[in-house]
């Protein structure tokens, strides 16, 4: 690559250098600032609304419906949406609305645990690679390369095949395939932030490496990680649904949306509602997370804006 001659910096005009209008003594943390930005972002608010909506649904599931998500009722098989069954019934005569409502718990849980798992392991490896460099970096980066060269869904399928199909194992598989994504992000963030002048400044004050890492490098890498984690929620939910669709995720009668889709596939002609609602729910939740993620990205990282 070319060697770029250093260019003298003039403070750039533009929004990022703009001081917010504030009273003299008020202290505005970058997080607060981001929060303000977020509040102005309509899409992000809609996303937030969707997610809060689903969280509420998940929490209050038992109060929202008088049906059980697993008791079958052969007499009322494949009923269309009606006042009695808002979203209709499935081939076992179970109320789809009830199953969707309980399914929200599963999807949100999957997103949460898969992302948390991937985040913890990915960050750990990413920090190791980014901070120690050399062969540690080499080794970890190659492992990430290899993992990323696999089509992720295949890898997930293989992992579930080893562990056996269950919601918990699907979750583990999704966490594993997402580890390199977080790992790489954290690594590149750690490396790029290590180049920042304030890190040099911290070193110049005689700060120890560990302190630099935990007080300066990590807090500053947080923004993109938070964004990725939010978006990762959506991805994880989609992946879990895909595994469920292939029969490798949650086991019956768990009302997992992907699983509901695959179970009702064959009724798409005769009872399209059985397919419509679970898919719509997946899409909405994922959309919600993506909207928040986009909003957070804009709010947290002005340079990534748009």
């Amino acid at each position, binding site marked *: 690559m*070319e060697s*770029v*001659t250093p*260019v*003298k910096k*003039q*403070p750039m*005009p533009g*929004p990022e250098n*703009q*001081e*917010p*209008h504030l009273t003299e003594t008020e202290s505005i943390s970058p997080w607060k600032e981001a929060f303000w930005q977020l509040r*102005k972002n309509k899409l992000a608010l809609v996303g937030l609304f969707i997610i809060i909506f689903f969280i509420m649904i998940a929490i209050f599931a038992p109060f929202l419906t008088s049906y059980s998500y697993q008791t079958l009722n052969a007499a009322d098989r494949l009923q269309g949406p009606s006042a009695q069954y808002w979203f209709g019934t499935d081939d076992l005569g179970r109320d789809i609305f009830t199953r969707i409502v309980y399914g929200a718990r599963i999807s949100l849980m999957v997103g949460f645990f898969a992302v948390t798992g991937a985040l913890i392991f990915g960050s750990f490896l990413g920090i190791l690679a980014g901070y120690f460099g050399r062969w540690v970096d080499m080794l970890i980066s190659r492992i990430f390369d290899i993992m990323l060269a696999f089509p992720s869904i295949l890898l997930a399928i293989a992992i579930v095949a080893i562990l056996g199909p269950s919601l918990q194992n699907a979750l583990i598989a999704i966490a594993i395939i997402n580890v390199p994504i977080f790992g790489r992000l954290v690594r590149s963030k750690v490396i790029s932030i290590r180049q920042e002048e304030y890190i040099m400044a911290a070193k110049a004050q005689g700060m120890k490496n560990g302190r630099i890492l935990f007080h300066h490098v990590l807090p500053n890498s947080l923004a993109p990680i938070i964004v990725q984690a939010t978006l990762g929620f959506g991805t994880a939910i989609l992946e879990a649904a895909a595994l469920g669709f292939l029969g490798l995720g949650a086991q019956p009668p768990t009302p997992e949306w992907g699983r509901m889709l695959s179970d009702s596939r064959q009724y798409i002609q005769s009872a399209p509602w059985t397919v419509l609602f679970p898919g719509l729910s997946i899409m909405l939740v994922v959309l919600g997370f993506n909207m928040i993620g986009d909003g957070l990205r804009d709010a947290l990282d002005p340079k990534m804006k748009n």
Partner: protein
Amino acid sequence: MKKPVLEINHLKTHFFTDRGEIPAVDDVSVKIYEGEVLGIVGESGCGKSVTSLSVMGLVPDPPGKIVGGEILFRQQEGGQERSENLVTVKKKRLRQIRGNQIAMIFQEPMTSLDPLFTIGYQIIEAVKKHKKVTKKEARQIAIDKLILVGIPRAEEIVDEYPHQLSGGMRQRVMIAIAMSCDPEVLIADEPTTALDVTIQAQILDLMKKLNKENGTAIMMITHDLGVVAEMCDRVAVMYAGKVVEEGDVRTILKDPKHPYTQGLIRSLPKMNKREERLYSIPGNVPKPGSIKIGCRFAPRCSEAFNRCYEENPDLLELRDGHTCRCFLYEKEGDLVNADALAGS
């Protein structure tokens, strides 16, 4: 007397951001006469670039918009003088003018050239847009212009990419592009700020030469009073979106009237003598729009009195061609008749 080729009258360019309306350029009037070099100086963020972009019709929209004033471009056409208002003229016509009769060079030579196209292509692009020439002729023009701006090995450099050139060379290429259609006005937005002093000297030298030899009028934007002294015939000093003082270069540098101009000049460390302590203007440059009423310099001004905080001072004509925006001179100078200016 020379005629103005470009006349900016009461230009107002505002940015509409989510933090509110920012009057980046607030009622700016300047004229550029044929063949002269007009300097526009001011500190960062005072609206120099936005003024020049307004002339070119390149203010990023959104969020920017010209909300008032006019920009008159005059040219001789078959003995007839023709005047067009660039603010209201059709987009298509504007594209015909810019790059052809009014050209512009920018501050950052490192980023102002498209890295993916050869130098030659980027010059030819400008030539072909405005002149009916064959490919071969265009290429020859490109080479000629490169020679004009003093690029060695012009024949080879035409086919090279920007990254193969140093900053100084790139700025020369930028000038070559700007000069490719022999414009009447060249707007140079801090053309040397990013360059080293030795390279800056080369570029300033070149621009002077172009001004002298081709008679191109130059609007030279800079924050360096040294460059102004070196290059310009007349200067306008801007502060927070307004022109605070304007006049010929000697007057402004030797006998500035506005407290801001005075402070600015006094605060510069001098090469020729060594003073113990520098003069300094207290406080910070205000963000545009943050001061709504009164003189924008008042909070930093050592001479400020109550009125300065309450009223907006008007531009006063002190002497022939020397104007200043300050209440201190109300008795000395006459109020510049703005309408008369606009009508001329």
